[in-house]
């Protein structure tokens, strides 16, 4: 396969396959969770499911000082990584154009300089997380191949993207095709790995919050 065929494939059929797997997988995941079903609660609700559910989805994005005495690296690097990753993904002009072509609408982008910073932050944070995972005895014991696989799949688009805008010697076309491929691999992996937390995190938060809400306790 030539460079061009590779690029055309990842931009066309490859993207279609990845999106199809991602959508099928995620819808399946969510429905599977939802349809487990719960027994109807006969107790009188003491508070609203909705306000607590949504509130918890939001509130748990922040941590409490008390909880941070251990796992400091995971916490700080984890925050930096997620914010950097999302900003890079959603606010680089070239990415916005891609979303515009997928969704039919776009939004203003951030200046490349800022994106370069978030990209570097994201890469650094992920490296820190990996180093921590490898050096911390407990975390290391808890890790299985999936933790490393998802690490790599998340790292791959960041590093190839960073190389793309920083004029390196690698032929641009191949690099671009690899970058897109890395995104597609990530999309495909999400539903089948712990990366499905990009959505399920919110579902479980909502569920926790909602239950607490109904019971009238703080979540």
């Amino acid at each position, binding site marked *: 396969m030539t460079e061009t065929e590779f690029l055309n494939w990842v931009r066309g059929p490859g993207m279609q396959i990845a999106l199809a797997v991602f959508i099928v997988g995620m819808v*399946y995941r969510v*429905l599977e969770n939802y349809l*487990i079903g719960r027994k109807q609660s006969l107790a009188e609700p003491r508070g609203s499911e909705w306000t607590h559910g949504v509130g918890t989805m939001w509130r748990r994005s922040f941590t409490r000082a008390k909880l941070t005495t251990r796992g400091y690296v995971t916490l700080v690097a984890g925050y930096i990584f997620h914010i950097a990753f999302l900003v890079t993904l959603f606010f680089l002009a070239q990415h916005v154009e*891609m979303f515009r*072509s997928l969704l039919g609408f776009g939004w203003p982008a951030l200046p490349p300089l800022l994106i370069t910073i978030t990209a570097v932050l994201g890469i650094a944070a992920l490296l820190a997380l990996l180093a921590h995972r490898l050096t911390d005895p407990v975390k290391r014991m808890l890790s299985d191949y999936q933790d490393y696989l998802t690490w790599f799949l998340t790292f791959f688009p960041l590093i190839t993207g960073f190389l793309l805008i920083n*004029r390196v010697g690698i032929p*641009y076309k191949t690099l671009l095709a690899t970058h897109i491929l890395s995104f597609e691999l990530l999309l495909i992996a999400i539903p089948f790995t712990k990366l499905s937390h990009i959505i399920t995190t919110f579902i479980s938060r909502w569920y926790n919050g909602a239950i607490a809400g109904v019971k009238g306790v703080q979540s």
Partner: protein
Amino acid sequence: MKDTRTVGEILSSQGISRRGFLKFCAATASMMAMPPSMVPAVAQALSNARRPSVIWLSFQECTGCTESLTRSHSPTLEGLLFDSISLDYHHTLQVAAGSAAEEAREHAMQENDGSYLVVVDGSIPLGNPGYSTIAGISNVDMLKETAAGAAAIVAVGTCAAFGGIPHANPNPTGAVAVSDIIKDKPIINVSGCPPIPIVITGVLAHYLTFGKVPELDDLGRPTAFFGQTIHDRCYRRPFYDKGLFAETFDDEGAQQGWCLYKLGCKGPVTYNACAVSKWNSGTSFPIQSGHGCFGCSEPDFWDSGGFYRPLSATTADVGTLAGVAALAGAAAGAAIGRMNRSHRARAQARHEKLTIDDIEES
């Protein structure tokens, strides 16, 4: 008939001074994208070079490539270069036609067997040989026959190099590139739709001067001209790097000369010399005139998404796909959900505790 004089001898027989010759060499070296320090070597090589016989074959093409070459080669300097090759057959340009022309071709082939250069423009239809013929000979036959005794082949234009527009989806004529047919000869691909005239002459000059095929990239293109992307050498690049993009062809950004990425510029993935050598005797090139690069020197440029869609826009139709995928996911999810539910109901009926494992099993 066979001219055995060297280029130096031919030029001096025309009364051209050494100064004139050196000037010619300086311009030629520049045209070949060689550093000025190479001029003495070029002069040395050129004065001893012997004019190669050239056979030019035009297949399924629009004559744009020949136009590009003949329109802009300035009759005196690069013209000299053409005097220095012996263009023995070019059925678009030559006066002779039909069997007389074919005789000229066969004659040139016999006389220079193993040493002549074949230049091809246009793709070759394999769907039905009758789609394109010359003097009753199909393109593929003529190419094979002519290539057999050639020293090298220059595929001029994206059609000859990669199939080009005739090869575009759905390729009704079964058009292919020269390299799809000829496997045992060095092929130099001078792609572009049309190729930059000075690049065509530069490649011929290189062959004439050094008698060998220049360094090629993985697509068979001379790296001297196709070694870098348009984007690598684009003067609008500082705007790209700053994230300043024209949104339409006549907005403020367009007037300020901002980057044309969002207007579909394919410069980042297009290897060609436009940004340096420019067009029309160095006057301008598409991006300088306010239009993004099409990627005309790349394989399948015609089928690589719309010309006016940004490079990072996906080429896939995803609207229906997303709907179908969501439905499929929903169906699968619902089915699994029902199974899980009945599983749970059964478990409860047996007064067993439901564990995570139960759910995961099903």
